[in-house]
């Protein structure tokens, strides 16, 4: 390996031997096309992100939040990217890369379906056949996204082993890859997995902070005091942080899903949260060493979050490293506060955020005074996908700012 793919002790390439040639080929392609813009790859990527993806996304002043918190609050509007989330930045990059590599088949895993739909869109756009693995339970919970993928011409393969969620879908996609490495590229959905994925996905997503940094200078004449982003695998997080890492004046906050509680039920193998940075420990999962939610023995726990996009037991190795070194502050927001923030942003700013992104706003609400005069929140996606969950979850709780749910309790 010419780039070692390590972030401190994290990272690496813990994969079955059958995948190593593919990983090496990918490393090579990453270096040539992404790092060195060979054949103008990065130019084409950026052009397509602009024209197909709708970039640049605005850095919008949130007038009413600014007033509420008595500081300048700006939103990085990744919810406006085609498909409704930052996920396309990565999916488009990887599918295009696969084309440059001469692959002729794409596979991907998806949990809530956001990465799957982004990949399906990118594949339709670039005329690549695509199969998406999705846990059977998730398929049943996220039918609109399943339908969108099929509309875009992708196949959706149900994963029935285990509990049928994201973790199992990732494992299953790795298995497919191990079987079909020669013609297939695996488009992983976040800054996780074996090297070069964490670096490559970060590079594709870092357009977020690249734009935000320039926009902050244009609008405020300076860099922000704080950047907040929710963290599941951590791709929107790394994307929003990457270009600020060298800017010491800017604090970076990775907001994890606190779920219902940070306490873990070792017996049942369940962590009722997805706070692997806050409460996890070092381990090896899905090809990389990183921080994980695991029990005493090293078995991976079932994570939980109100937002399915944060519901993952691991986290990107680079982000884990940045937290360990103190450059990024890991914090967390529980389900209740995230849901309240979802309603608050919808009402006050006319933007229905993804429940994932709502976590970042939950942190802003609780800790705004600590965040300086100029805060940027990465609005990683829109909440249209979350309407059903919002109804259910709001109904179960007593959220005083929420609209009356009575007529929606039967679902949409």
């Amino acid at each position: 390996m010419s780039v070692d793919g390590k972030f401190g002790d994290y990272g690496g390439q813990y994969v079955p031997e059958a995948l190593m040639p593919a990983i090496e080929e990918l490393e090579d392609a990453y270096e040539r096309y992404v790092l060195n813009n060979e054949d103008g790859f990065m130019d084409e990527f950026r052009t397509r992100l602009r024209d197909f993806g709708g970039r640049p996304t605005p850095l919008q002043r949130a007038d009413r939040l600014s007033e509420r918190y008595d500081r300048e609050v700006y939103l990085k509007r990744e919810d406006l990217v085609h498909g409704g989330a930052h996920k396309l930045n990565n999916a488009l990059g990887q599918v295009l890369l696969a084309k440059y590599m001469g692959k002729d088949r794409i596979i991907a895993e998806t949990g809530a379906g956001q990465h799957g739909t982004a990949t399906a869109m990118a594949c339709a756009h670039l005329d690549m056949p695509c199969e998406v693995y999705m846990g059977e339970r998730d398929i049943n919970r996220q039918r609109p996204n399943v339908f969108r993928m099929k509309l875009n011409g992708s196949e959706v393969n149900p994963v029935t082993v285990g509990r049928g969620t994201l973790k199992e879908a990732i494992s299953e996609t790795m298995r497919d890859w191990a079987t079909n490495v020669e013609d297939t590229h695996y488009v992983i959905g976040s800054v996780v997995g074996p090297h070069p994925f964490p670096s490559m996905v970060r590079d594709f997503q870092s357009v977020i902070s690249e734009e935000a940094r320039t926009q902050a200078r244009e609008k405020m004449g300076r860099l922000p005091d704080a950047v907040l982003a929710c963290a599941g695998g951590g791709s929107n997080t790394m994307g929003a942080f990457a270009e600020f890492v060298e800017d010491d004046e800017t604090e970076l906050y990775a907001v994890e899903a606190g779920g219902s509680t940070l306490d873990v039920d070792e017996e049942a193998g369940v962590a009722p949260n997805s706070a692997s940075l806050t409460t996890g420990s070092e381990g090896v999962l899905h090809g990389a060493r990183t921080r994980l939610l695991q029990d005493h023995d090293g078995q991976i726990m079932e994570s939980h979050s109100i937002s399915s996009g944060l519901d993952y037991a691991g986290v990107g190795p680079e982000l884990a490293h940045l937290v360990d070194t103190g450059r990024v502050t890991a914090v967390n927001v529980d389900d209740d506060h995230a849901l309240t923030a979802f309603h608050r942003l919808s009402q006050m700013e006319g933007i229905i955020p993804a429940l994932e992104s709502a976590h970042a706003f939950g942190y802003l609400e609780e800790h705004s005074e600590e965040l300086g005069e100029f805060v940027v929140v990465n609005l990683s996606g829109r909440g249209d996908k979350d309407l059903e969950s919002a109804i259910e979850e709001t109904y179960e709780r007593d959220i005083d700012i929420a609209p009356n749910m009575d007529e929606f309790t039967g679902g949409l």
Partner: protein
Amino acid sequence: MSLADAFADGPAFVPYLVAGDPDYESSLEYVEALERGGADVIELGLPFSEPIAEGPTIQNAIVRALEGGMTPERYFEFVEDLDVSIPVVCMTYYNLIYRYGDAEGPRPFVEKAADVGIEGFVVPDLPAEEADPLREACDEFGLDLVFIVAPTTRGDRLDRIMRQVSGYVYVQARLGTTGAKSDVSDQTGSSLDRLSDYDVPKAVGFGISSGEHAERIVRGGADGIIVGSALVDIVAQGYENDESAKTTAERLETLAHELKSGAIDGVSQRPPHSERT
């Protein structure tokens, strides 16, 4: 007996089962039945919650074993309780090795494994590049570290792996994950050819399910055959059909016999040019 010894005279039959599948007691019986059936080495799976290298058969076995309460501690007890004289190789994923004991790192796990008499490891998600700490611990406690070589493994990578390997090399017969197949991959022959210069026993696995497969593989030059899913299938059927453990054990023993005999027959049929030194 060391792994080297197990391969010393004639082709080795290396069956795989998941410890604790579907329960502790039955699983002990099953392993013992395999020895009776002719096993030379047993690859004993310690179940991990995210078995990315396994096909559905073994994934399901892992789920059964985990639900049956299998843990690393219980696994070590299991090995101690096993009444077999053939060497046991522990097959598991790196995280369980890495997390064992209170320190991060593989040493406590290896120490404990040595203690209960395990002879070596196969760790499907640990590539040679990341294997130094485990290699060192194995060396310290005198255990072997088996690596898997895939049909796609060539050149530098192959060298790097073969420099680390000890005990035997696990030759993956086809791309993909574990799982019994009804035919045998042609990739095996060329894999064995690539390995012919390395002086370590070559055991071929992935997809072998019958005596006839075993025969063909050994005829093709393998020093041993590794059989997992075909055996695990029998355990699964027994479990689903509520068979007695004894019945399942007998069926395992029968298949083991067939596989072992197939392997032995394979040697005698080797064409002269493929004789090894």
